[in-house]
């Protein structure tokens, strides 16, 4: 390359960069989404994508959205985020716990791109975290489960041993136990967020061992289908309503409602008022929805569940209210004491009465 072509190339690059900057400043805001499963999983990722579509409907041509499905949690996630940031995306939602470190790493390289990480706890100047208090919904599920079970065995398909999942097990167990002191939880760790065949096998194993209520913290509807095939087993929709399995086996659900949050945060970027934050909303704020409780649930139980929902929504009742002991019998919360958010966010222990150990 001689000097003239070098100069020419440099000038061309400069012009390109300038027009690029111009386009970035005046074009629509690009918002990116990273999904852990396919948008058609019928659960977790499906709801994030629904929220993305609502975001697009809300802002119209003021924004553009891009998304990448089924991104593995790990090094691949970093590549995908980097690619998005390089292509001019200014706000990136990374929607799974396992994207936590990749998000922090990539965010450090792109200080002018805003990142929003779901269900994590690490923040930075340009990384905010958000999550929903799903354990509030788990309390209601636990209550219905405890009242509905005839075998006193409740199966729980867990995904990964992270605080989010452990909180759900504890919350469901506490309220199932309150409703029915003889209740027992059998937990299977599937080590996946999404693998319909494995989720179906896990549900079958639990049902074959006598469970007649299946709770799931994985994303597909496969356990619902397994419960339906078995008959006499009830389930709850996870992340999404899973209403196609109503009125039975699916008797209620936890529905994630991310759209209001996504709209608010995107507006903040447009206005230039975006700041790193730690948002954790529940039933009261509308981030956690409780799907219709079907007629398969006895009226009394339904009324109790709805009363529980109202008291949680109004803040009158906290699902983790003492007296509560840890699994090893040591005291955790005294009579009337309420768990603080810090402990909940990092929860790594079972409450008293849950059998089995949490894998490391």
């Amino acid at each position, binding site marked *: 390359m001689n000097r003239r072509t070098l100069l020419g190339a440099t000038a061309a690059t400069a012009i390109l960069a300038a027009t690029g900057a111009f386009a970035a400043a005046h074009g629509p805001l690009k918002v990116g989404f990273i999904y852990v*499963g*396919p*948008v*058609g*999983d*019928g659960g977790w990722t499906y709801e994030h994508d629904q929220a993305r579509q609502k975001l697009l409907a809300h802002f119209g041509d003021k924004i553009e959205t891009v998304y990448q*499905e*089924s991104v593995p949690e790990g090094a691949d996630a970093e590549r995908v985020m980097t690619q998005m940031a390089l292509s001019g995306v200014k706000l990136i939602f990374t929607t799974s716990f396992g994207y936590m470190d990749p998000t922090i790493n990539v965010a450090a390289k792109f200080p002018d791109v805003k990142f929003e990480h779901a269900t994590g706890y690490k923040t930075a100047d340009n990384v905010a975290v958000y999550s929903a208090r799903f354990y509030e919904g788990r309390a209601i599920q636990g209550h219905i489960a405890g009242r509905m079970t005839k075998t006193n065995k409740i*199966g729980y398909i867990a995904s990964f*041993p992270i605080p989010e999942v452990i909180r759900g097990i504890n919350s469901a167990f506490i309220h199932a136990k309150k409703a029915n002191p003889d209740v027992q939880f*059998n*937990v*299977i*760790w*599937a*080590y*996946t967020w*999404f*693998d*319909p*065949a*494995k989720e*179906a*096998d*896990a549900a*079958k*194993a*639990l049902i*074959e*061992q*006598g*469970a007649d209520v299946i709770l799931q913290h994985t994303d*597909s*509807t*496969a356990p619902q*289908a*397994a419960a339906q*095939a078995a008959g006499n087993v009830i389930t709850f929709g996870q992340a999404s309503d899973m209403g*196609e399995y109503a009125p039975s086996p699916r008797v209620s659900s936890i529905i994630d409602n991310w759209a209001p949050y996504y709209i608010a945060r995107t507006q903040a970027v447009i206005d230039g008022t975006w700041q790193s934050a730690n948002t954790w909303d529940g039933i009261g704020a509308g981030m956690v929805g409780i799907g219709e409780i079907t007629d398969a649930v006895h009226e009394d139980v339904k009324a109790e569940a709805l009363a529980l929902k109202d008291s949680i929504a109004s803040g009158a009742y906290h699902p983790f209210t003492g007296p509560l002991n840890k699994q090893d019998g040591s005291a955790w919360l005294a009579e009337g004491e309420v768990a603080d958010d810090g402990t909940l966010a990092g929860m790594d222990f079972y409450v008293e009465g849950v*059998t*089995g*150990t949490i*894998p*490391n």
Partner: protein
Amino acid sequence: MNLGAIDPVLLIASLMVAATPIILAALGELVVEKSGVLNLGVEGMMITGAICGFAVAVETGSPVLGFVLAAMGGAALALIFALLTQYLLSNQVATGLALTLFGLGISAMIGQAYRGVKPPATAKLNLGPLGDIPVLGRMVFSHDWVVYFALVLVAGVWAFLKYTRGGLILRAVGENHDAAHALGYKVVRIRLAAIAFGGACAGMGGAYVSLVRVPQWTDGMTAGAGWIALAIVVFASWRAGRVLLGAYLFGGISVLQLNLQAAGVPVPVEILSMSPFVVTIIVLVFISARQKGAAVAPAALGRIFHASS
């Protein structure tokens, strides 16, 4: 802990079901690799078969027709691979990977309308008095026809490769395509047939996941079963009988570890979770290691053939 809660009869019945998609896909890939072609697109062909079979079964109400169309769908996708690698001489590894991505994408597109739909049930085969045998009847003789079809196919592929002239020619093409060509065999045509067969098997395996094992349609629902099938072919050192063993081991331990977890056995969950992979690999490697010095992989595996070279 409550080991008594695990019913061995139900356990073995579930493992036969869990292993069937892997047997079908691995068997197809075995034939493909025996002909000297490495098709890494098993996952893509499985998922395409899964949605083709699901859609057809839902529309016609006939699961059998679903399986037939799943086989055709898988074979059609495989023929794209065949066209690219056999006629246009593209790199087999890259083309196979692309096939997986393509299959995942196209299946999600076809599947848009089928989310949340329930497929017609695949009936259990009525084997008459066999099904009434205590224990064994429930364990082995109470399945749908695909489970037995897979077993028959294992025997068929084994016999074909070992005893027939066609099998010998297929293996010759896989070992040394230039020699086979010099003898007058149509290398490309034989490989085409093998690739189509592999695609059909993978498609049926995928349909088994969406029509029987889960049964519903969800994007990306095969979730890596195709990769397991690929690995089992290698660890089974390209033998049909060992493919069966490997698939049953893998399927069996996958189901067993979930049952052990549910029963609360005090073994760390991490160990239980990885046990299907570890045990299957160890057992198959151990068996393969006993045949000393035998180069088991087809010699022409993955190599591009052109009549001029």
